[in-house]
């Protein structure tokens, strides 16, 4: 009987296995549901799919909170994923990001005339699923599979505006460059497996703890190469300098609702993955990787802030600002203490609130052709749309790190941990770099309240129907920012042009307001009463970094 000796190898997962990945399962079900519901949705009226997705996100959030309250965390599916505090903390942030991203979507998708609206919502939810799997992975295999799900979904989402060449270009660039980074990461993982014989993070940690690490030890050189390759892969995914070149083009070209979601979600997933590999599994090899990440952190903080300061397009400025913020988070990784990992988690949560909000305001102002996000467009916003202006000012003050906002709390915990953890120089460089940040964030506030539109822009009533022709942002546009793109299709519409105040461009969708309000409230709450979140982050940090 041939099955006799095969039958012991039938693996049946138990109820606890399923329970521990309940949030992910709910999200997967929601993703499949939106894919099916798309079939019965009438073309052009697909906004309610966002509601379906939102319901699933709330369900997953409830499941996450229940798992946290349950308090018994551990591995599921034989050490593939776990639901430890880190995973749950990251899941809450990711679910918040995708929830707000879904709220931003209906109005924006309608305005941009995105044809594949149904697939848009499905891909967004599945991207969030990939992020959650990546941040809850306890095995290199799961880490990579999660990364691939989120990357593939985001390539498509970046390129989903079929009528905009910059969106297509963003998707293509992101696909090619990010595939390379994934390959680097995978090669690093393969070499790690070759050196240690394990793919589980706990197994790798046990191996490098018990085996003395020298270059002559046989596995030593393999591990050094593996560390380098994995560092490259992760640094690319979090857009740290010198692997940031894709960030501005992709963030500007992608639909703004997608940019808002991915700038936060990818950072959470990639930084938690980075922390699991470097701060947990390969923690004993700290002397080997620490100098590398130190250099990356310094470069990213200084370079990101300086590049952001030269931008006149706010969307592009925010893209570079997300590079700079990756630098602050890298400080927390390089410091490598329990307090710094707590700081990293706090920074991720606060960054999610304020960055989603900032991109949300840009999204509300963006016109159909993807223009309307330069500093000139923000001029005089304080009188045209006081509510939107106040929210933007709040998010800018928060990103600059003003006390009583979320941004201050994040920076405080990261830099304080760096000082306590024998990296005073990183904290000082970070503080100086964020002074540059104050300049370019507050320049937006200045434009909103203290400048008038230079010439009342000759805006076109035919704006909606104007053919979209924009120069392909080339390598030179990377350096000069959005300046080259600042002249939209006035030539074609000038005959019908009437003086329309920019406030009358397009009413902001109700769901967008809701998302902005959520982000704004959270930015203030996390800034004024952060104690609860700080305690949660500490509980999470204690499970990973001893």
């Amino acid at each position, binding site marked *: 009987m041939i099955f006799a000796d095969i039958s*012991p*190898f*039938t*693996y*049946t*997962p138990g109820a606890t296995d399923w329970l521990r990945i309940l949030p992910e399962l709910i999200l*997967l079900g929601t993703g499949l549901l939106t*894919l099916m519901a798309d079939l019965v949705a009438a073309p052009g009226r697909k906004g309610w799919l966002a509601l379906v997705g939102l319901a699933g996100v709330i369900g997953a959030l409830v499941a996450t909170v229940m798992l946290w309250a349950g308090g018994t965390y551990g591995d*599921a*599916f*034989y*050490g*593939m*994923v776990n639901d430890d505090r880190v995973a749950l903390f990251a899941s809450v942030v990711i679910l918040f990001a995708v929830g707000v991203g879904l709220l931003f979507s209906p109005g924006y998708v309608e305005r941009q005339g995105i*044809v*594949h609206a149904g*697939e848009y919502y*499905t*891909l967004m939810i*599945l991207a969030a*699923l*990939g992020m959650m*799997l990546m941040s809850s992975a306890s*095995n290199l*295999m*799961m880490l990579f*599979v*999660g990364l*691939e*799900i989120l990357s*593939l*979904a985001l*390539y*498509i989402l970046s*390129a*989903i505006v*079929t009528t905009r060449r910059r969106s297509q270009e963003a998707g293509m660039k992101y696909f090619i460059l990010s595939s390379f980074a994934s390959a680097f990461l995978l090669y690093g993982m393969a070499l790690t497996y070759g050196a240690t014989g394990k793919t*589980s993070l706990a197994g790798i940690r046990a191996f490098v703890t018990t085996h003395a690490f020298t270059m002559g030890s046989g596995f030593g050189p393999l591990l050094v190469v593996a560390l380098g390759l994995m560092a490259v892969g992760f640094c690319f995914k979090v857009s740290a300098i010198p692997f940031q070149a894709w960030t501005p083009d992709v963030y500007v070209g992608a639909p703004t609702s997608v940019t808002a979601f991915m700038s936060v979600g990818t950072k959470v997933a990639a930084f938690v993955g980075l922390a699991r590999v470097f701060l947990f599994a390969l923690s004993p090899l700290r002397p080997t990787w620490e100098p590398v990440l130190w250099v990356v952190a310094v470069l990213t903080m200084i370079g990101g802030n300086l590049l952001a300061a030269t931008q006149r397009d706010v969307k592009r400025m925010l893209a570079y600002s997300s590079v700079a913020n990756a630098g602050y988070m890298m400080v927390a990784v390089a410091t490598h203490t329990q307090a710094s990992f707590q700081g990293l988690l706090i920074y991720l949560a606060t960054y999610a609130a304020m960055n989603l909000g900032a991109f949300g305001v840009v999204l509300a102002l963006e016109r159909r052709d993807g223009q309307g996000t330069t500093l000139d467009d923000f001029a005089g916003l304080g009188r045209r749309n006081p509510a939107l202006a106040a929210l933007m000012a709040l998010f800018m003050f928060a990103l600059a790190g003003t006390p009583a906002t979320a941004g201050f709390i994040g920076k405080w915990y990261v830099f304080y941990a760096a000082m306590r953890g024998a990296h005073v120089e990183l904290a000082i460089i970070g503080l100086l770099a964020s002074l540059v940040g104050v300049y370019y964030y507050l320049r937006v506030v200045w434009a909103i309240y203290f400048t008038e539109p230079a010439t009342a822009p000759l805006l076109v009533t035919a704006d909606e129907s104007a053919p979209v022709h924009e120069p392909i942002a080339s390598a030179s546009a990377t350096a000069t920012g959005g300046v080259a793109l600042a002249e939209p299709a006035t030539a074609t519409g000038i005959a019908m042009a009437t003086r329309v105040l920019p406030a009358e461009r397009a009413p902001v969708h109700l769901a967008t307001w809701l998302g902005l309000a959520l982000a704004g409230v959270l930015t203030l709450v996390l800034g004024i009463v952060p104690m609860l979140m700080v305690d949660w982050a500490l509980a999470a940090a204690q499970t990973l970094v001893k």
Partner: protein
Amino acid sequence: MLDLPTVAFYIIAILLVGTALAVVLSRNIVHAALFLAVFFGAAAGVYVLLNAEFIAIVQVLIYAGAVTILVLFAIMLTQNAMSRNANPFAGQWWLAAIICAALAIGIIYAVGSSKMALLSANASANMTTAGAAGGSIVRLGQLLYSPFDYSYVLPFEIASIVLLVAIVGAIVIGRED
């Protein structure tokens, strides 16, 4: 005395070298791509001889199947493939020849001096145990579903979500509106 695997090896080796040369030397680039398919298939034969059946199957599926088709599509879409001299001889062939020779010498030296080399004492022992355990496919299957140590059921299943995302993405990118 030549046994069957040795005979098979020499046949495959001649096929490998012959088709590899044909890929480089043939003037018609479509012929070169087709020779490449044969080359990939012969390489799979080497894996079979090494008791690595799984890699052999993957080699056929991915390289002989997908990669060759991709190359053919790329040729078809980018240039007039049926022109007689679609694969002109590059002027730097002598440079390529030198690099290839250096690479060959390096590999022969590395294989000859490695601890894993066929002539060393452990190698034959390794090969017999690998064969006795039922080949790599059975071991892989056991590892995928093993209830004892750790099993790769979850990533295996979740790979289907990666495929789902890829399918949805392909439709979004490719469908005409």
